[in-house]
């Protein structure tokens, strides 16, 4: 098992699965108790992840709470979990957003009667998804990682396909095929790595730690990185692999969009660091200029697209692409500031983008539309909604004192140190970001409230319950970023050391 003797990480990963099975055998007409079980399970997972944070030893850079069991010994595949300062905060982020998603699903989800009444199935898939996501962040065996990574597609397929908007069938198939196509080559790369290990040690292994120590003959690191990177690029998504995103984000029900943007997109970034930077530093180094160009195109293209959207959900969706492209750029330059920015921004983005998508959901629920032109002057009838929107939006545009600022500032400092042009273009993206965000806010919240906008109901208790924890975190993390950067510090230093060891960019 592990040195502590207690399988904390396994418990975190498989508790949602147990909850899913419980939901499955529960009386399917008892909607209230199914929701209650789901909330209880996700809260318990949140508590466990917070325990993991509390028990984490910040001075150590390596993996902690490692677990190891043989799984398929004939092929050297094993069950290995572990957490370090890089993945640590993704756990409570994931757990929190799943709690939020369950709360946001308290009212029936779906666009027709049949799906709205299928509460059991919805929560079954939601909990299964949580196991998949947590497994991805914790798996340290490449095949196990791939299993979690791919298995997650099944719950996602149903969550979008059954409970999504009008074009849900199209959106979900597109999402599934895109992601599966992206990760197909990753499987071959994983097998190739296992074979390289076999050649040098005489035994197949997919253990991440062992594979890091392999001396791969050039140009193997480059093409292996490319095969892995394609999977991550689709997931983030990096331009030009983003075309599934507007459809999937747009058609998914609000709680699922929150998870897609808040958590699933982080899997791509996580992959770039854990399996790109750490497994193939030389490969990433060689591919860096190309990846940087794609990321910069992504920042500018997504920002300009966001400016032009008529649908507020799509504005947030494109803004998410732009912000994550900046994070990818931070991985590419891989210096101390940019990597700290990556760690910080992964968590920050997850929180404010979740808040933004929840607000979009509330707007849609109140007015039955997402077209920005249909809104106007909502601040008067719904001031609380306005305040929440304002805080989340300012967090996203990087107002100092809120969480988005810390990450973006660190990222820009890191970019400036490596390649000034990147920093300039990244800052341009931030300016565009402020423009489309403020403009969207202005068109929806300010001005005269006419027609149906005049009597839009404000946020109520349930809405506030979902929103307030996120807003509080936006402020707390903005003021005390060391809550995250402190414990992650040793790991970030180690990552910087690895990157520097292969003579990074000028």
């Amino acid at each position, binding site marked *: 098992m592990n040195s502590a003797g207690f399988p904390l990480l396994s418990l975190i990963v498989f508790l949602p699965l147990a909850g899913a099975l419980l939901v499955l055998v529960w009386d399917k007409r008892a909607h209230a108790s199914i929701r209650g079980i789901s909330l209880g399970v996700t809260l318990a997972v949140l508590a466990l992840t917070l325990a993991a944070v509390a028990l984490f030893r910040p001075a150590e850079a390596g993996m902690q709470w490692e677990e190891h069991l*043989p*799984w*398929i*010994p*004939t*092929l050297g595949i094993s069950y290995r979990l572990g957490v370090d300062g890089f993945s640590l905060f993704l756990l409570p982020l994931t757990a929190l957003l799943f709690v939020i998603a369950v709360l946001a699903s308290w009212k029936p989800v779906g666009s027709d009667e*049949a799906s709205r009444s299928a509460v059991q199935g919805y929560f079954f898939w939601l909990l299964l998804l949580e196991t998949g996501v947590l497994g991805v962040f914790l798996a340290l065996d490449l*095949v196990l990682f*791939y*299993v979690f990574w*791919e*298995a997650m*597609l*099944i719950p996602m*397929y*149903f969550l979008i*396909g*059954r409970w999504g908007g009008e074009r*849900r*069938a199209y959106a*979900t*198939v597109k999402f*599934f*095929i895109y992601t*599966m*196509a992206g990760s*197909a*080559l990753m*499987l*071959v790369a994983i*097998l*190739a790595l*296992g*074979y390289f290990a*076999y050649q040098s040690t005489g035994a*197949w292994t997919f253990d991440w730690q062992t594979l890091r120590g392999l001396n791969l003959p050039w140009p193997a690191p480059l093409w292996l990185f490319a095969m892995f990177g394609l999977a991550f690029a689709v997931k983030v998504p990096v331009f030009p692999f983003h075309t599934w995103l507007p459809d999937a984000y747009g058609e998914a029900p609000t709680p699922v969009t929150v998870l897609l943007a808040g958590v699933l997109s982080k899997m791509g970034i996580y992959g770039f660091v854990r399996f790109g930077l750490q497994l193939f530093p030389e490969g990433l180094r060689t591919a860096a200029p190309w990846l940087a160009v794609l990321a910069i195109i992504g920042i500018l293209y997504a920002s300009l697209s966001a400016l032009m959207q008529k649908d507020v959900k799509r504005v947030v969706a494109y803004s998410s692409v732009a912000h994550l492209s900046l994070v990818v750029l931070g991985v590419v330059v891989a210096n101390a500031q940019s990597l700290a920015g990556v760690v910080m921004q992964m968590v920050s983005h997850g929180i404010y983008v979740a808040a933004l998508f929840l607000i979009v959901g509330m707007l849609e629920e109140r007015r039955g539309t997402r077209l920005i032109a249909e809104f106007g002057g909502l601040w008067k009838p719904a001031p609380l909604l306005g305040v929440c929107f304002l805080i989340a939006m300012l967090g996203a545009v990087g107002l100092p004192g809120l969480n988005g600022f810390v990450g973006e500032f660190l990222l820009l400092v890191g970019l400036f140190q490596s390649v000034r042009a990147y920093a300039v273009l990244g800052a341009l993206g931030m300016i565009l970001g402020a423009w489309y965000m403020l403009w969207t806010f202005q068109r929806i919240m300010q001005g005269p409230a006419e027609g149906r906008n005049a009597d839009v109901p404000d946020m109520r208790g349930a809405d506030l319950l979902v929103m307030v924890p996120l807003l509080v975190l936006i402020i707390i993390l903005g003021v005390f970023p060391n809550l995250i950067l402190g414990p992650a510090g040793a790991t970030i230093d180690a990552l910087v050391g690895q990157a520097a060891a292969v003579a990074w960019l000028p």
Partner: protein
Amino acid sequence: MNIADVQVVSILPQMIMLAAALAVFLADLVWKDRKGIGLLALAGALAAFAAAAGMLAGSGAPTFQHMAAADRFALVISLVVSAAAVLALLISLDYVVRVELPAGEYYGLLLLAASGMMFLGAATHLMTLFLSLEILSIALYALAGIRTTDLRSGEAAMKYFLLGAFASAFLLYGMALLYGATGSTYLAGIAAAVPQKPADPMLIGGLALLLVGFAFKVAAVPFHMWTPDVYQGAPSSVTAFMSVGAKAAGFAALVRVLVTVFPALYAWWVWPVGILAVLTMTWGNLAALAQGNVKRMLAYSSIAHAGYILVGVAAGEAGVSGVLFYLMAYALMNIGAFAVLIALERAEADAAGVELARMSGLFHRRPWLAAAMTVFMFSLAGVPPLAGFFGKLYVFSAAVRSGLMVLAIIGVINSVISAYYYLRVVARMALAGPAEEVEPARCLGLSIGTGIAALGTVLLGLYPTWLFNLVQGTLAVLFGG
């Protein structure tokens, strides 16, 4: 010859299957209870399964006069075939009554075919190889055409018979050349002679003809033309069984011949097999994309899966265990998928199989049936953590190990293509509203069969280790023959 040397015990599972077939034929003369005969057949298949499993657990690898071996390779094939037979019989119990098939002939021929498949997996002599192939083929020709009132069924039998006869001729000619080149009809004898004359044109010619013959039998492109029509025209339970059993047996013989007899000629056969694999995967998947009939779609998907297995064959010795694992996984998920189709089929109108539209909204009508079908579809598409994924992982890792990374790459790309048409079935069941109000059949045997297949597909995915261990190193014994 001393009678004690004739180790009949080494072919015990096959003999049980054969005895059960004869018992069914005899019982049919006096007993008119369709279900009863079905249960008798089921008992026989279960006994054969138990015998194979018991012999696998035991030790020693006796051979039957060097004509057939009871090595672990053969026993695993016996296990796969008898498991497929058990599942096929379970899903037939109600189907045979519903579409009014002649019970005695149906069950008897099915068991006979199964015994032929098991013999084929064990054959270590050209004569046993050919005879067992004919036993299974002739039984399957008759089974394909057993629905005598249906023209499609007749057409299927005719096509299968004509092309099957062609394939047999190729095989026979190839065997003759092999005998001419090496002077032996024992596989071990041929294997011993091969290294002495590696570039003998007669030997290469024999090998090539054997390859063509087996390619016909396992439905590899471009020798697959019979498959869609036969699979669609034959009764669904027969299609389920032959798509799995005949494939397992055909691949068993192919692997045994290529890996034990021709390792010295690996460089000669790896590329033909590799090219066959690429063509088979790609064509099967592309053609399946265009199908609106689920049964025909599964026929093309079956061609595609033959392609994935061929990737394992091309990997040579490294791929043997992957091929065996894949065959077991495929048996579970494919028979399961056919079981669901059988539940949806209605007597006369559906002789050509279930249209995609019939699946609409199945999740609302029969959630467990739809859930099982979802498991089979995702597993066939190779999504983890299901059996099909580990099958692919195993054969593709063997390909990478043998330096055939390009085959692995084409294989994973094909998996993505296949996901599209498997997902279409899931989408119909889960995302569309109910279209036709046809109440799917409810029958205990069918439910048990579907349940075992679904459970097996999931468990083999979550914990594939025991089967991985079982199929490991079956080859070491092969060389001893």
